[in-house]
């Protein structure tokens, strides 16, 4: 089989899985399409180095994961929305750093395992993630993408560890409140 033919078969066989994964990570159709196209471009360039030692699927997913990490890095370095630090905290805390009345976390009565498999909750969770500013979304996603050492993630994102956990702090406050409003209080 020619290399062209091999790639063509891979495109037909794996585009579906690669696209769904890229969409799941980025929540954006255009970005997911771009990432999958780039993945096959890299695959076509590097096909010589693919030696049938791994499954094509694993190999392609490896390329895609690198592309996704690169995508998040760019988003963090060039944030589209810039949110002032203090402004975003004011939503949750008063001047003395005490919880505002409407933001005080209530108890959630839940069974974690059932919750994670609940389709309704998964949907709300995804919606709440999408509401995060792009930079925060990228920081949070990078933290869990491959459960890498946070120090390494910071290096990749060009952030100090302090900046990084502060972004995570704001993102988690917003995510938590969104979940409470749309799931636990309804």
């Amino acid at each position: 089989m020619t290399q062209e033919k091999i790639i063509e078969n891979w495109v037909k066989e794996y585009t579906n899985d690669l696209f769904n994964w890229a969409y799941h990570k980025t929540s954006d159709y255009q970005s997911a399409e771009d990432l999958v196209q780039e993945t096959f471009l890299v695959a076509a360039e590097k096909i010589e180095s693919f030696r049938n030692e791994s499954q094509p699927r694993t190999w392609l997913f490896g390329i895609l994961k690198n592309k996704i990490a690169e995508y998040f890095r760019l988003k963090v370095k060039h944030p589209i929305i810039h949110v002032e630090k203090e402004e975003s905290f004011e939503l949750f805390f008063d001047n003395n750093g005490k919880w505002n009345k409407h933001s005080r976390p209530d108890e959630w009565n839940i069974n974690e395992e059932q919750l994670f498999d609940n389709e309704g909750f998964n949907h709300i969770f995804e919606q709440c993630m999408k509401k995060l500013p792009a930079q925060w979304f990228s920081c949070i996603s990078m933290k869990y993408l491959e459960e890498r050492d946070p120090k390494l993630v910071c290096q990749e994102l060009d952030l100090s560890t302090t900046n990084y956990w502060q972004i995570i702090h704001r993102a988690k406050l917003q995510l938590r409140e969104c979940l409470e409003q749309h799931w636990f209080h309804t």
Partner: protein
Amino acid sequence: MISCKKATGLIEKRSVIGLSFAEKFQLHIHTAMCSACTNYQKQSVLIDNMLKHTSKHLPANIPAENTDHVSGLISKILNKKNS
């Protein structure tokens, strides 16, 4: 005593780079007396677990639009390659 803003910050800092002894102590004292931050602490861990869960599993329901995108994308990639 540290504020709730500081306490929740320490909870997130802990999950990223860990805390110094003094910070651990401050957080411990705070959460012992603040039910809202105790709730936050539990929920923060829950959100972490949920994020870990979703980063490994594809959702059970893939949006129907994805299928249309995929067939369009396949022909896009193949046409580009042949041209």
